């Protein structure tokens, strides 16, 4: 089910909100668990049992890890940890990477003239990358002693299936919501702020991202058939950069907003990423929960930056190679990850990271340069194949005038308006995440903005959501 789909908006969500609020506090987790399983089962029922089974295994192994540690049997605890991580990564590997791997082996076999393996074609269960990381974080946190293992398996099941974030994040740790898991008690101000946050996210998705999408789609399709011109290429990639941000951050706002209305505080996922003054800074603002996960569960365990420059660079490359692969089993994602990893290495080497609190010199120029670097990377991210990406880059740099006809057709007044609005929002001064500012800041201006959001923007967004055809969130494919 998709947050912006009419089934979710006009049936599932109001029913779950009303049922949760109406239920006695001790029964709310059962309402939420039922809702989470139904939400996930809607369309991917065949995978639901595997998710439940894998979660129960994690629950049991986490208890075992804790018991083994408490008993001083560290090798056993480590073994159970490895088992848990392995079963999670095996599921992820099978569903997400087995097809890619067999395809590469088949190509390799073809090159050396040997019979290749059968290329597997496996449907990717929605949200698997997100909840796999969450389950891994749980058992690792238990191993580290950062969180106590849950005695009740329903707690872990609710943590994994909590529908606001089960399929596209924010990637949450159990310890962040453990207090609410057993007895969610939403406070009135939290519920009100959650509604505003949700409305803000829905508007970002349907009023901006979905309106811009045809421009990017047309540009990348034109790159695929060799008709892309230079202006169209730049317009297309800028449109994609804005579409991706408003789509994914809109989803995160909606998830956080629903979480708040249900009494949960989910972690923030975006903080004005296109205001970043370096690529390092960008990764502290973009998909923050993913960056945090890789930092805590890969980068730091590898030694982080504490073991000399060469190992730091190696660790950065590993993290960003994995970041790329996490987004998809394709060479374009691998290259995209390495591209960002390389920039982080360059910034560290040249002292350009600009991550301390003091504003850097030439902030505007650095911001523009960072945006340009990120923009170039998005081509790899969006292109269907390396060939298309190379054609796209060629169109960006080899001057070819005019606007590709389909891109020109996609630049309708509505799309241009949405593009201009998105650009203004991104360029507007300010240091805080817009959604959080809108929902939680006191003062006259935020109050007026809240009123406008509720009375004008929300009904408009609902009209657009109700009237549009199906439009999935971009990050569902990961």
């Amino acid at each position, binding site marked *: 089910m998709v947050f912006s789909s009419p089934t979710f908006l*006009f049936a599932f969500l109001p029913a779950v909100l009303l049922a949760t609020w109406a239920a006695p506090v001790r029964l709310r987790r059962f309402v939420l668990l039922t809702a989470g399983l139904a939400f996930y089962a*809607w369309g991917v029922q065949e995978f639901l049992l595997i998710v439940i089974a894998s979660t129960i295994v994690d629950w049991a192994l986490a208890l075992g890890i804790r018991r083994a540690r408490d008993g001083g049997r560290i090798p056993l605890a480590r073994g159970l940890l490895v088992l848990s991580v392995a079963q999670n990564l095996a599921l992820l590997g099978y569903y997400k990477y087995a097809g890619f791997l067999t395809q590469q082996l088949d190509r390799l076999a073809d090159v050396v003239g040997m019979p290749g393996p059968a290329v597997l074609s496996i449907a990717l269960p929605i949200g698997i990358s997100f909840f796999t990381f969450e389950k891994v974080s749980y058992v690792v946190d238990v191993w580290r002693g950062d969180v106590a293992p849950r005695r009740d398996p329903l707690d872990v099941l609710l943590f994994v299936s909590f529908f606001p974030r089960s399929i596209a994040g924010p990637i949450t740790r159990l310890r962040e919501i453990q207090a609410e898991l057993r007895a969610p008690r939403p406070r009135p101000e939290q519920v009100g702020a959650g509604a505003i946050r949700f409305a803000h996210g829905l508007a970002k998705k349907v009023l901006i991202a979905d309106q811009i999408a045809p421009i990017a789609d047309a540009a990348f399709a034109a790159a695929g058939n060799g008709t892309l011109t230079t202006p169209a290429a730049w317009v297309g990639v800028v449109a994609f950069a804005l579409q991706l941000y408003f789509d994914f951050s809109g989803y995160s706002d909606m998830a956080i907003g629903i979480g708040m209305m249900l009494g949960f505080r989910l972690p923030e996922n975006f903080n004005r990423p296109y205001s970043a003054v370096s690529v390092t800074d960008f990764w502290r603002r973009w998909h923050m929960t993913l960056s945090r996960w890789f930092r805590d569960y890969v980068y730091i365990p590898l030694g982080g930056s504490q073991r000399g420059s060469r190992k730091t660079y190696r660790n950065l490359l590993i993290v960003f190679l994995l970041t790329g692969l996490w987004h998809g089993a394709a060479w374009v994602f691998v290259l995209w990850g390495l591209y960002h990893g390389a920039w982080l290495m360059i910034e560290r080497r040249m002292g350009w990271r600009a991550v301390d609190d003091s504003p850097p010199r030439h902030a505007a120029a650095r911001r523009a340069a960072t945006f340009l670097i990120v923009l170039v990377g998005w081509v790899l991210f969006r292109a269907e194949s390396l060939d298309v990406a190379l054609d796209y880059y060629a169109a960006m740099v080899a001057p070819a005038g005019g606007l590709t006809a389909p891109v020109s057709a996609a630049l309708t007044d509505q799309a241009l308006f949405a593009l201009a609005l998105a650009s203004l929002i991104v360029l507007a001064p300010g240091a805080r995440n817009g959604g959080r500012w809108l929902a939680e800041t006191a003062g006259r201006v935020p109050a007026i903005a809240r009123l406008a959001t509720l009375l004008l923007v929300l009904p408009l967004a609902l009209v657009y959501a*109700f009237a549009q055809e199906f439009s999935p969130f971009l990050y569902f494919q990961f």
Partner: protein
Amino acid sequence: MGRLARLLPAIWLVALLAAPAVAWLLGERQPLLQNQPKKPFPTINRSSLQDRATFDQLDDALLDRFPFRGAALEARAAIAYDVFGESTNPDVIVGSNGWLYYRPELMPCTPGSEPATDPADTVDVLARTLVAAGYRTTVVIAAAKQFIHDDPASSVDARAEECVRAMVSRIDRRLARTPGGLALTPELLALERAGKSPFLKRDTHWNWRGREVFARRVLDRVQPGLVDEIGLRPGPAIRYPGDLVRMMGMRRTEPDRAVIALRPPRRPLAPGEVVLIGDSQLDVSLKHQLSPRHPALLDIALVGQLRCDWADFLHGGCDDAIRRARVLVIEKVIRDIHSVTFACWRPIAIAGERLRGPAAKWEPLEGAGTGADGALEIPPSGSIAVRVRSRGADVSDVPRVLRLPVERYGDSAVPVTMTQETPGGQAAPCATPDQGAAGGALMLPIPAGRPMSDFVLRLTSAPGTRLGRPQEIVLDGRALVRRG
């Protein structure tokens, strides 16, 4: 701030979200959208629940049933149209000043949808054959709005537009000089140039001016003097609901007038004397009652006459009525010209039941020759390639139609099928694809200026089937048969 005040945003959100479901529980139902049937609910069972398509179908079915979906579509379309001057339906083009156009009007020049034979030749041989068979005939092809109301802002595909415009012009030039043809475009263009557009702004059809032109010209062809007899004139003001805005999900009307008749004709036509085969332009002009105080023109001027749908006509549902009729009106819009090229063989085959002409001769290109009586027999292979040779000139400056009579069927009474194997040229329009009736004939029109020897036919049937000597009928505009 009080507890309720802090909860107000959430109360408002849930009220908006729950409104459709609550309305449904209170009995509110979403009417059909654009007359499309609601998508059915999927079958729910253990196996279907494991299929992702079941949930997609469930989403679609719910979406069609949520109350207020129509209102949301309308609001969305109104924002797009009124604020941004854009369309929410890819088939609807927004031009300047809110004028709307229908994109499929470019269909005749869209790759894959082009007519199979030359449309000008098609309407020419159709009208002339019917005139030759004694019908009082009107064949008219209605040009689309964008080719009358010139609006550069509506341009979406310059190549296709130019192509259709040229096709309209070619057809109209031909209809203007074809006996039985009616070219309306020049008159409609003249109105447009005088600042009196004959089209509705937000609809695919003519407004009262266009409808009046059509009604006058057609009714006077049906029976000269009929227009004056009935006192045809523009009637009261009405509000016309636009089909193009409806395609975008909006319900809007625009000012128009009804075209009315003041009285019935003094000399009413006998029932069934006229068959009108047309599409919605004909219906809006003659059949629909647009003013509640005045009957439709058809119900006052042509009482008892048959209005035949193209869907029926395409499948032979109008054949008997055509056989009985004395007057035929055939109207089609340019976007559906392929329907004319596809189905025009039907009235020509009916006309061919009565038409006769001087003998031509068979020229078999393979297998056995013709008999002493000039007849052709299907050889044991069941198929033969032939030409027909004229006794006169191979080329003529007027169209001709060849009548290929089936004299006798082979043992198994398999129908004779005729396919054209025309190397390096367009196929003949309106050729009979097959003939299964005893004593029937295949008809093969030869357009003006085309050598008869260009057309190579493959005739297929049971061995022993005999086709008599071909007959060549010259379509010079004269009625060769008197009717009724």
